[in-house]
């Protein structure tokens, strides 16, 4: 039963509960009109303490397409946070007005902490360099639509794997499925955090490699998940400049990939995927964005107890 639950981390739901969400998302894609009044009379609050384009718009579009309404803020200076209000107080207040909330915050664990203070469903829309579970829903829906299921596949993750919250959530999710293998491609300084390597991947016995080259491994991959080196996660600008251009996927590198290797990216992209790759049919990152809206529609419905 997903009604009134919070989604803060992929570990919060079981495989069966995620299945319910994906099944509904596939149904919504097949007939969106059927769901256009599902959330009439309901309000989603979008609490974005950090800039966002697609995640916030995706949540808002999802609620509007379900017939609901949206309130919220897109940067903390336009909320009482600027006056020094605590996260807990903001959330307790918003709960008086909204039925469900999506929250993004630059500090890791902020949505988990906030969820302890409220009773309405809360969705983590990204917390610092930690987790981004609804991007994972987006990624999985895309993978299912391209290849049917997530099992028995090799996933490459490339770029900033240390602060890349979308990578952490996706690895956590995929680690529950049989036959998956991971290849982590990154500079040594940006490798996956210890809690992901030790507590998730190793503990579940998932085969994995940590490497610092892309080309030799391209032929093994079913999916290559590219990520941006995020300037906002670095305390030191010099480190960012030194690492930001380390891995760039271009048409030449795509020649090493199999014809059935798909390229995913949570977006926004800076320069880690050359625009020349966009026209390659294996590039699927813009389709991910569309799927994100549908799967968020399904998630909102499930957490509100509709369907």
């Amino acid at each position, binding site marked *: 039963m997903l009604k009134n639950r919070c989604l803060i981390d992929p570990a919060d739901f079981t495989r069966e509960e995620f299945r319910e969400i994906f099944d509904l998302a596939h149904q919504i894609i097949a007939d969106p009109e059927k769901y256009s009044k599902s959330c009439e009379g309901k309000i989603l609050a979008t609490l974005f303490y950090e800039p966002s384009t697609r995640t916030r718009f995706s949540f808002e579009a999802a609620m509007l397409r379900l017939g609901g309404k949206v309130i919220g803020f897109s940067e903390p200076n336009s909320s009482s946070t600027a006056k020094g209000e*605590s*996260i*807990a107080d903001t959330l307790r207040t918003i709960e008086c007005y909204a039925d469900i909330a999506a929250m993004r*915050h630059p*500090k*890791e*664990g*902020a949505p*988990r*902490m906030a969820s*302890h203070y409220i009773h309405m469903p809360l969705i983590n829309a990204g*917390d*610092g*360099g*930690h987790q981004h579970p609804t991007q994972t829903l987006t990624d999985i829906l895309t993978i299912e639509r391209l290849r049917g299921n997530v099992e028995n596949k090799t996933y490459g993750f490339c770029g900033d794997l240390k602060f890349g919250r979308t990578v952490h959530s996706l690895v956590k999710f995929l680690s529950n499925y049989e036959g998956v293998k991971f290849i982590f491609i990154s500079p040594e300084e940006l490798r996956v*955090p*210890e*809690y992901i390597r*030790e*507590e998730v991947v190793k503990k579940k016995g998932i085969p994995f490699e940590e490497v610092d080259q892309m080309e030799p491994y391209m032929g093994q991959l079913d999916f290559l998940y590219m990520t941006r080196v995020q300037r906002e996660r670095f*305390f030191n600008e010099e480190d960012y400049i030194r690492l930001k251009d380390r891995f760039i996927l271009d048409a030449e590198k795509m020649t090493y990939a199999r014809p059935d290797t798909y390229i995913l990216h949570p977006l926004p992209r800076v320069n880690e995927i050359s625009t020349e790759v966009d026209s390659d049919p294996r590039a699927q990152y813009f389709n991910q964005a569309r799927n994100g809206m549908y799967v968020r529609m399904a998630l909102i419905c499930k957490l509100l107890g509709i369907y």
Partner: protein
Amino acid sequence: MLEINSIERGIVIDHIKAGYGMTVFNYLHLENADYNVALIMNAFSLKMGKKDIIKINEVIDINYDFLGLIDPNATVNIIENGKTVKKVKLEVPETVTNIIHCKNPRCVTSVEHYFDHVFHLVDKEKRSYRCEYCDDIVIPYPNK
């Protein structure tokens, strides 16, 4: 040989890993005690080589989670009328609340200060813990 008299009523925390006696002493705020307290460091131990001991001439509330976190092999003896009336077996706690704090500057605990700091046990042997909020893994009291 240094001699510390036995106590009539109180608590003896024995077999503390050498070097952690002062940590326990500070955590229990024994520097403010108005009763007799003895901290013995680097005492000879047949089993451990060296150990620390704390004798407290009063029965006080002790957070056993904290002691288990520092050294689950330490022993706690409650003394009444000069005799041990209770031995407390320590365990590595599964969850610790407000004993250790997250040092990850990106963690929400670094900016909001009104809620509990909670850590969950990851590895019993290493006594490593994971922050409830940011998942950062720490070993608060490593084996010396």
